[in-house]
């Protein structure tokens, strides 16, 4: 088979190629990252000082809601799906994803879904304003008319995610090259396989939740209405049954990325490969039985609170195994600090901070104090920004030479890294303090005692936002202007795996039309 590429716009619209689809996912994700980031800037501008400066409270709520939804469903998830598309076939020695046409469909549903969601900004009554968790009755009885488009948008995202996940599972189970046994698979493939299981299990539950919302809003059902015998708290249970596995859906692929990058630059084999696999599986299993730790203050029976507290703290065990394994991999390695490694190390340290604040939040009596404060905002931004997003950035720097055949500008990339890490901490670290002091999330105004912390957070956020344009420039320079020295086939001195050992850089349009032999 020749290495012919179709040309023009139809190459992208009608493609069945996993690399093209991966690229589209990544580009889409970056666009959403900038849009969601712009909304974060609006939020931080308003919070720069106490009092109301720039926006109406209702618009502020729309910004927090859309920022969350766009970052979760539009930026982080599609970014990891894009990486999965690019990498999984190359890593397991497959010619493509198992179901290539469905693969393209699951991508093209996303723009449709987000056009619907974003168009709600221009509708009468404004965009959804009830937070990304869309609790009933805020979203049922009191939701603006645009809520219906949000609901159908979520349905579309769900269809896309489920198809994408099924594709990954089938590809991993059925398309591995001979000799590539399950326990030889790179950890990125493992973590994505487990992520895909989570997606298949919980996205339909989310679809069920929004369907109940829809019928409560328009067809007279009483799922979340106590007067009809339902219960608004039930919405929270159903939502978080989806929502908690969802946070692992966002972070597990980043675990896999760290597990690929750290051994390369430490020039050692990954410490405790099989324990990494089992730890990932345990985290995924536990994620199904901890959901109510998001709702400790809602008035659950004490037995329930105890169960969810203990189950939640258990997650720290397999997560700890992973962190120790990464550290042990670096131990006595001959480490060099190229940009992907810097991001991976930052990921390990800062994700762990987010993990620790998570254990604090898991303690029921303590959570009664922290609930819905900026401490929670600090916690989940530490696991998402320096966690999931740094993980994605690490992956982009690490595999970009393999994708494009060119090295990125290492100097600029290091600047990007150092600015990012300074600003990310400047943005989110003070939130721990304002939260502990009692500042509530999702409110546009605050007591003047929180002024300093908020000013620092806002300065950090603006810096962090601007820094990402440097990232954009680095990407444009490497991928579109084709500047930068040629990458070798192995790219990195210590890199292992089929994509580095068996394929040239850039990887051909159709890699592995005959499967490689894996010993």
């Amino acid at each position: 088979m020749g290495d012919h590429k179709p040309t023009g716009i139809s190459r992208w619209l009608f493609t069945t190629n996993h690399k093209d689809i991966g690229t589209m996912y990544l580009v889409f994700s970056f666009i959403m990252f900038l849009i969601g980031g712009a909304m974060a800037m609006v939020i931080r501008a308003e919070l720069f000082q106490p009092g109301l400066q720039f926006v109406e409270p209702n618009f502020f709520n729309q910004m927090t809601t859309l920022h969350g939804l766009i970052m979760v469903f539009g930026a982080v998830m599609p970014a990891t799906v894009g990486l999965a598309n690019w990498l999984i076939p190359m890593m397991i020695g497959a010619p493509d994803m198992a179901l290539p046409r469905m693969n393209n469909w699951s991508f093209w549903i996303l723009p449709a879904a987000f056009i619907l969601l974003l168009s709600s900004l221009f509708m009468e009554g404004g965009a959804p304003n009830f937070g990304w968790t869309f609790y009933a009755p805020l979203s049922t009885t009191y939701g603006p008319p645009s809520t219906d488009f949000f609901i159908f948008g979520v349905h579309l995202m769900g269809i896309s995610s489920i198809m994408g996940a099924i594709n990954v599972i089938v590809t991993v189970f059925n398309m591995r090259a001979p000799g590539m046994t399950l326990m030889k698979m790179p950890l990125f493939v493992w973590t994505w396989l487990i992520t895909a299981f989570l997606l298949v299990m919980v996205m339909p539950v989310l679809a069920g939740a929004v369907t109940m919302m829809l019928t409560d809003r328009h067809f007279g059902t009483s799922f979340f209405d106590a007067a009809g015998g339902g219960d608004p708290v039930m919405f929270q249970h159903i939502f978080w049954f989806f929502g908690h596995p969802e946070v692992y859906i966002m972070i597990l692929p980043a675990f896999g990325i760290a597990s690929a990058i750290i051994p390369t630059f430490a020039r050692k084999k990954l410490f405790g490969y099989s324990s990494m696999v089992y730890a990932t599986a345990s985290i995924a299993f536990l994620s199904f039985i901890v959901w109510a730790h998001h709702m400790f203050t809602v008035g659950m029976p004490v037995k329930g609170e105890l169960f969810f507290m203990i189950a939640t703290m258990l997650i720290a065990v397999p997560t700890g195994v992973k962190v120790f394994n990464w550290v042990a991999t670096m131990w006595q390695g001959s480490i060099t600090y190229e940009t992907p490694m810097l991001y991976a190390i930052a990921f390990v340290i800062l994700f762990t901070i987010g993990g620790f604040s998570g254990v604090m939040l898991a303690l029921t009596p303590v959570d009664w104090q922290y609930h819905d404060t900026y401490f929670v905002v600090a916690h989940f931004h530490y696991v998402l920004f320096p966690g999931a997003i740094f993980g994605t950035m690490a992956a982009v720097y690490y595999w970009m030479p393999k994708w494009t055949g060119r090295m990125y500008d290492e100097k600029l990339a290091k600047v990007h890294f150092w600015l990012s890490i300074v600003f990310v901490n400047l943005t989110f670290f003070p939130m721990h303090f304002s939260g502990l002091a009692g500042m509530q999330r999702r409110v546009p105004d605050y007591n003047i005692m929180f002024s300093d912390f908020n000013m620092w957070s806002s300065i950090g956020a603006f810096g962090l936002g601007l820094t990402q344009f440097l990232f954009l420039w680095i990407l444009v320079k490497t991928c579109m202007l084709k500047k930068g020295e040629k990458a070798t086939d192995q790219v990195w001195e210590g890199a292992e795996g089929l994509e580095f050992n068996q394929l040239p850089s850039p990887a051909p349009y159709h890699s592995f039309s005959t499967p490689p032999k894996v010993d």
Partner: protein
Amino acid sequence: MSEQTNTEYEKYYVPEQSKLPFIGSIGLFFTALGAGKTIQGEDFIGIPGGLVLTFGILVLIFMLSTWWAATIRESMSGLYSAQMSRSFRQGMLWFITSEVMFFAAFFGALFYVRILVMEWLGGSSNNAATHEFLWPEFIPNWPMEKTPGGETTTGMGAWGLPAINTAILLFSSFTLTIAHHALVEKNRATLIQFTAITAALGVIFMGLQIWEYIHAYTEMGLTLGSGIYGSTFFMLTGFHGLHVTVGTIFLIILTIRCAKGHFTPQDHFAYEAGAWYWHFVDVVWVFLFIFVYIL
């Protein structure tokens, strides 16, 4: 790269470019947009919401039928390897898993309401004040014939139509299995007959289900709006009915394909997928019958 002797891995059919996925996304977009506009009774640039919705659904139907026709053509012309058909099989199983989880959300709501909410609204645990001050008249029982807000309705009994429907669906699983065995044993006449009988049973089931709904709405005062009992009843049986409809269409197409001489004893993925789907719908019904109707 080393020589490959394992013929199974020799070629994996990666289809050429296809317009269908993109068309499908356009269809989904207009379906969602139209559904939203219809619900709100609004226009989209002057076109009534219902029309947009219909357009979206038609595009989707066109796209899906073209897509499946293409896969049937590819399958019949021998492009698919054993590995390919394993991909389809596994994909179908995971699709059914996701469907199971969709129903799990609604069953979860049913259990949560019956086990916890009923008692709480009745004032148990720390909810005495809720009961005392908000709805002192409310008596928790199931079927909830009077909501806290005062809506009344009647519970649907299990041993009339629903029991007959249960028998029909269980019997249809049986006839489908006979047909599947006939396929493996190359008994084409039995295959066609029993697949057709299964599809017919699906149609009869749906007919009875519609009759039950009409009865509920017109005579029993049981509607979607009759509190949480009506909500769970109609959403669970309704989504099940939707799946029976899809399954029946699937079976009708399989009957036609059997009559055209498609499927071999070794290679009949579509038939298996249809059979799995039908059994899944059947199992969901058994749970429905137990938890919605009997208990």
